[in-house]
C-alpha cells in the first residue's frame, strides 16, 4: 500500500464515522418511504373458518357469519361497514369504477381501529318471508328491518337467490365524509327451500 492508498482509506473511514455521528439527526429528518397502505376485509363462516357459509336458508333458522377488517393505512382509521341485501337483478358495487351499490344500507357498523389492528364482529341473521319469492324482513343482531325484497326464479340454478353483502367505507378527514373503500364481501343465499 502506498501513501495515496492510506489517504483514501483514511478519508473513507472519516466519512463512515461522520455518517455514524449524524445518525441521531438523520433519524429525525430522513423519512423512509412507507409501505403500501391498504385495508383488508374478510368474511368467515359460523366456525370462524373460510368454509361452511350459510347457503340454503330454512324457515325460522338463525345464521352466523364473521366479518372482519384490518387496518394497514399507517394511522388510526374510521371505518363503516354497510350491510346490504339484494336479489339477482340488483346492482353490486363496481370495483373497476370504485362505486358502491346504489341499494340503501339496511344495517351498519362503525369503528375506529389503530394501524396494524383488527376489528371483527359476529353477525347473526334470520329472515321473515311470505314465500321464497318475497322476503319481508331481515333480522340482523336482533334488529328487524323491513326489506320487502322480491326475487325471480333462476331457471339455470333452479332457485330463488339473494345476496347479503357488506361494503367497507372509510372516513376521509379531508373531505369530512365517508367514501366507498372499494372492498366488499358477501354470501349467496338460496331461499328455495322456504317456499
Amino acid at each position, binding site marked *: 500500500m502506498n501513501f495515496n492508498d492510506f489517504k483514501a482509506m483514511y478519508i473513507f473511514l472519516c466519512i463512515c*464515522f461522520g455518517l455514524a455521528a449524524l445518525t441521531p439527526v438523520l433519524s*429525525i429528518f430522513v423519512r423512509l418511504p412507507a409501505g403500501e397502505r391498504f385495508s383488508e376485509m374478510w368474511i368467515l363462516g359460523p366456525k370462524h373458518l373460510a368454509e361452511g357459509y350459510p347457503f340454503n336458508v330454512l324457515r325460522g333458522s338463525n345464521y352466523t357469519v364473521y366479518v372482519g377488517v384490518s387496518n394497514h393505512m399507517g394511522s388510526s382509521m374510521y371505518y363503516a361497514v354497510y350491510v346490504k341485501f339484494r336479489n339477482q337483478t340488483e346492482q353490486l358495487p363496481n370495483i373497476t369504477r370504485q362505486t358502491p351499490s346504489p341499494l340503501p344500507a339496511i344495517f351498519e357498523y362503525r369503528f375506529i381501529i*389503530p394501524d396494524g389492528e383488527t376489528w371483527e364482529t359476529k353477525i347473526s341473521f334470520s329472515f321473515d318471508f311470505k314465500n321464497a319469492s318475497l322476503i319481508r324482513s331481515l333480522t340482523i343482531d336482533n334488529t328487524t328491518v323491513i326489506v320487502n325484497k322480491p326475487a325471480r326464479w333462476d331457471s339455470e340454478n333452479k332457485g330463488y337467490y339473494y345476496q347479503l353483502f357488506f361494503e367497507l367505507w372509510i*372516513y376521509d378527514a379531508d373531505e369530512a365524509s365517508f367514501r366507498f373503500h372499494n372492498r366488499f364481501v358477501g354470501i349467496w343465499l338460496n331461499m328455495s327451500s322456504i317456499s
Partner: protein
Amino acid sequence: MNGYIKICYLTLLVACLSLGSFNDFCSGESDLDSVLNEAEAKLQTAYAAVLQAEKSGGNVTFLVIKLSVAASLMADAHNAYRIGRYEDAYRYAVSCCDMLDGVVEEAEIIRAEAIQTYNKNMYRAIAESSIALALLVLCSVFGWRFFKKWYFRRLLKMRPEVGESR
C-alpha cells in the same frame, strides 16, 4: 242546534289536538335530526383531533378506544333511526355526544406534549451530532498529522544508507 254546536266543538277539538301532536311529532323529529347531526359532527371533530395527535407522535390508544365506542353508538343511533325507533336513536346519539366530551381537549394536550417531546429530542439529537462531528473533525485532523509523521519516519528508517568509499 245544541247538538250541532257540540259536534262542531268536538271536531274543532280533535283538529286542534291532531295539529298539536303533529307539531310535537315534527319538532321531535327535527330535535332528533339535530342531535344526530351534532353527534356526527362531534365525532368527526374528535377523530380529526385524535388523528392530528397521533401524527404528532402522541400515544392516543385510550382516545382511540373511546372514539371507537362513540362510533359504535353512532351506528346504533343510525340503525335505530332507520327502523323508526326514534327514542332509541336519540338516546344513542346523546350517549355518543357524552362519550366524546373532553376528547378534543385531551387530544390537543397529547399533541402539544408530543410536539414538545419531538422538539426536545430534535435539539438533543442536533447537539449530540454536532459534538460528535466536531470531535471527529478534530480527531481526524490531528490523527492525519500524526499518521503522516509516523508514516514518513517509518519510510525514512527503511531508506538504505550509502557508505563512503575510500
